[in-house]
């Protein structure tokens, strides 16, 4: 099936999860997501979990998220 990640089409096995698609998209991005410096959203801007199931044609957006630091 084809999944779009940041506008790039990734062809991957059917039944792939979000984590599978990200690993195929970019190992660097995958590492950043694992470390929490980037997060994954669907095409409408909602956060999706890494074990989220995908359908043909789904779109994912991976982007850096600024986290609010707790006040000292």
């Amino acid at each position, binding site marked *: *099936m084809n999944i779009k990640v940041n506008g790039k089409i990734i*062809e*991957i*096995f*059917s*039944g*792939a*999860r*979000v*984590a*599978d*698609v990200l*690993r*195929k998209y970019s*190992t660097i991005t*995958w590492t950043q997501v694992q470390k929490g410096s980037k997060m994954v959203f*669907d*095409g*409408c801007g*909602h*956060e*999706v*979990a890494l*074990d*989220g*199931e*995908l*359908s*043909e*044609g*789904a779109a994912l957006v991976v982007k850096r998220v600024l986290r609010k630091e707790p006040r000292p």
Partner: protein
Amino acid sequence: MSRAQRQAIGLSLLLPLLLAGLACASLPPAPADTRIIIFHFNDVHGKIDNFAKVASIVERERRGGGDVYLFCAGDNFTGNPVIDQYQPPGEPMLVLLNRLGLDVMTPGNHEFDFGLDNLTRFTAQARFPMLSANIRAPRGVLPKLQPSLVLKTKDGVRIAVFGLIQTEAESGLPSTHPDRVRGLRFSEPLQEAMKFRKLRKGNHVFLALTHLGFDIDRVLAERMPQLDAIIGGHSHTRIDPAEMVNGVLIAQAGSDNRFLGRVELRIRGGRVVEKKGTLIDLKEWREEDPEIKAMIARFNQNPAFERVIAETPFALEGKDALGSLMTDAMRTIHGLDVAFQNEGGIRLRRLDEKITLKDVYTLDPFGNQVVEIAMTAEEIRGLIRDSFGKGNEIDLQVSGLSYTVRTESDLRIKEIDLRAPDGRPLPEGRTYKVGVSSYVASSYNFPHRDPGRALGSTTAEALIRFLESRPDFSIYRGIQRAFQDPPGRNDRY
């Protein structure tokens, strides 16, 4: 609100007749102003720990005397070995959902993971109805499954709900192994949904409880503006606040029991005049139901986890023996020609003679799915070439063939020799059903024309089934199927 105050009316067999009747019937008068709260969760995948918090939130709202419901949008099973390996499988979920006072559930594709007999047992013992309009089950199978129902509040507000499960375009089946849904018939969910538009008439609130994924829920909302709200699952999407599409509220609560969804509907003059949905972050919630907390603690001490599932005549030691065992499991259980296992995914050096479930999940803890890819011999060489290049040493254990990577003195690959199990060269010019983990399928860079397909179970589950089948363990003494010539620095532990 007590369960006795709620009346659920099943519409399964008499649906067309009832729909015709409802179309003519006048809507019963509704109270002047009613507020309905629907808590919902989805894709819990065996993560039961937060159910004590869920119970406290729902009970607190119920104690307030309002009209409070609890919905589940599917996929309770698979994802936590301690729960998945319970005997019978998934039993803790059934006990906890009953105890939580769940009002209605729609099955997800992972509800079938333990087989149809197990799900039939689950539905028979559930104290809540299961809704799915696009599943047809023969008599005696999934006894409480029905397409839709109407919940009635104590004030007479009628809430019509119908359920839907996702199907794959290719197979027309939910995303699970076809063997697990044999005997059931599935129809395309969006087409099936259109048959339920008439539920709008005769009911004050009209809801879809779906396991379709957010993208498909959006399409449903576009095509079915008669709906007040869609409470969904499958894509593990955290929708906070719930999104309005074509006037339909779409809610989904992420996954793994990290959030509890809360949809609030205000009914005035017989129709929904206000609707909103938010997520409660369970990490931030402190209060827990002590009784449910104690039940969860007991479930987490699953004695089955210590169960010995196989006894071998000698300890299996080293990546060649363990990798051969793991790939034999994948190949045998799924009827494949060849299977590969990356050495980085073999997380033990040794399995002692008495192998427990816990050992299996320590050896293979990642929850990777088995993926089948049709590959030529040349494509198999491409996979081995990529794996060898990761560290200039053997990286893939194998079943169904053996191979030798011949290298130059600088470790550049000169040749990859593939041999069938009888020692002859592997025939070229045909395709092989090759099994790999989802990790290898997605992170190794190798040419293959067939994108492949997940087979609906994990590599660990294949290993458990293989070990329980009592294979001949003697073949693993001194076994080696992957060679490097000249030998490399890999210590082959």
